[in-house]
């Protein structure tokens, strides 16, 4: 029966394939184009005369002697200190993911196992916090951080990102722990475990699918953040995204567009690779609950 329903006529298959191809072009082509262009010089990628120069590498050949060049990468990683920014991003991302998972699993486990009414209010407050635009929070941070003299350094930013990330992590892990049978840890409690022991020995071994999903979203938030990092870090400590923005506009780097283009590639490539491996977790996370990261 199912086979007959799902059998598609030729026309549908053709129209469908064309549409999918069209759609994939829209979503992927800009990235491929940027990747291609990052190996050219500015006069080619931003060609006033003829955009086909970007394909043929006309000016690149004149300026560097070959049709592809790694010049933008080399310069941005050395002169542009993009390596430092990459290092900072790695520090921030790893710290944010581990800390927010640590806090999140504990909190979400408690929320999913408590039967009292306040759990509901905590979750609602988390939902409200989740909806706050990050920039409004940043406007609240700056003044106290200046007064306390903790502005501009990585630890502050890490803690802030962890906190901003908590509402979503809590909700995601809460809905995950709800699917873990209560009987598992209840039997451990009856056998004389404390709640911490039940969490440590019974829940931790089975929670990894949920943790991977939550970790993926924490990673994306920390890795991609611009609002918080651009305003809370000083230039020296910039992570990749604010650094790219700095290449475009500030006096220091003189609007060096090709640096920005190559850095965009350097920054997105690892992200795409990670998502390629964890695609299934990403999708399950997006559809899991009533919230989105």
């Amino acid at each position, binding site marked *: 029966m199912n086979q007959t*329903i799902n059998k598609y006529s030729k026309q549908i298959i053709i129209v469908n394939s064309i549409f999918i191809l069209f759609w994939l072009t829209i979503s992927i082509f800009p990235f491929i184009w940027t990747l291609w262009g990052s190996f050219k010089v500015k006069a080619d990628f931003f060609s006033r005369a003829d955009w086909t120069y970007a394909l043929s590498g006309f000016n690149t050949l004149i300026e560097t002697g070959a049709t592809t060049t790694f010049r933008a990468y080399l310069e941005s990683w050395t002169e542009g200190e993009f390596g430092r920014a990459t290092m900072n991003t790695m520090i921030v991302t790893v710290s944010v993911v581990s800390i927010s998972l640590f806090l999140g699993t504990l909190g979400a486990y408690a929320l999913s196992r408590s039967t009292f009414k306040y759990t509901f209010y905590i979750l609602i407050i988390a939902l409200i916090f989740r909806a706050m635009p990050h920039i*409004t929070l940043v406007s609240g941070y700056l003044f106290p951080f200046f007064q306390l003299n903790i502005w501009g350094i990585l630890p502050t930013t890490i803690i802030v990102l962890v*906190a*901003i990330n908590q509402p979503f992590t809590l909700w995601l892990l809460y809905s995950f722990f709800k699917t873990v049978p209560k009987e598992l840890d209840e039997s451990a409690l009856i056998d004389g475990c404390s709640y911490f022991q039940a*969490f440590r020995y019974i829940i931790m071994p089975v929670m990894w699918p949920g943790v991977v999903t939550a970790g993926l979203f924490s990673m994306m938030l920390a890795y991609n953040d611009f*609002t918080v990092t651009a305003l809370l870090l000083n230039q020296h400590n910039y992570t990749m995204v604010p650094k790219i923005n700095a290449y475009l506009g500030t006096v220091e780097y003189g609007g060096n567009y090709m640096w920005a283009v190559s850095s965009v590639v350097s920054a997105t490539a690892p992200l795409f690779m990670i998502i390629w491996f964890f695609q299934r977790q990403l999708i399950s996370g997006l559809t899991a609950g009533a919230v989105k990261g």
Partner: protein
Amino acid sequence: MPHRTFFWFILPTALAMILFIGLPIVSSFFQSLHIENEQVLMEVENCDPFGCTTNVRVDVEATEKIEAENPLGRFNGFGTYTDRNHLAFDEIREAWDNTSSIGEFKDIVLNLPFYKALLFTLTFCFAVTPPVIVLGFIVALSVNTLAKSLKGLIVFGTILPMIVTPLIGSLVLFWMIDSQGIIGASIQILFDDPNLSLKASSNLTWITLIIYGIWHNTPFAFVVFYAALQTVPQDPLEAAYIDGATRFERVRFIVIPHLYPVATFIMLICLMDNFRVFEPIIGFSAEGVAQSLSWMIYQDLRNENKMLFGSAGATSMLTILGIAFLLTPVLIRTWKEFKTER
């Protein structure tokens, strides 16, 4: 779980949220009640062979002293909220009194910074969301018909625009659409107009930003619809098939009604997320013609001379009000879900 155990489990995360989400909102509110200190002026007499002149100068020492005593500035009450850069009550009253037609009045009001930003923010929200839902649904339907072996790859390609941060996403598009990029240059050749560019008119910029918004948000709608499509019950579909319903009719009368709740969910999330639109404006360098509420706050905090905490705080509070307005339906929905769960 006993209260005491619960408390210890929840404490770290609650502390993080209270300190870095709850308190900043309060702190923002306090800032919004204050305004930057006035500079202390003093008269200085300058004498030279041609006589004496008195100049007014900033007394740096006295200003710094006040600054040190009151770093937050002086108390201003709700003054910042009603000034020209925010709700602009005086300007609106004046415009109301001095204009003869509604159109004229509208022009004046929509040129005030806050209302200009609000107009763009709302336009962006409401122009992006419907196409996102429709497009996301169509893409989900068509990916769903593909062979299983292809799905993984195509889903990955489809979600790319959502994964990159808005700043990078908008830059990547901007570099193509810019008058020196591939699309921009082709359009110029197509219309035979060398001056045609994204920045040529504010309408074009707005449209570009909205197209960007659709590009960035559709993958999310797609993913949620795609997952929901897997839960469509098969029995009614079979029954409809036996009764002779065409494919279109089956989608229209069985699949779409099944997805209504999902569509409202996507709509609310989309509205809420797009209300914070900010990074694309920087990515497209569209500050000149398109300002959003979040961008206004960023600008106050990025101010060259002195960070305008009061102004940023006031805009933040007004933005939060707007978010609260959009959030209410989501809260009601969650509330109901919880009630039925128990």
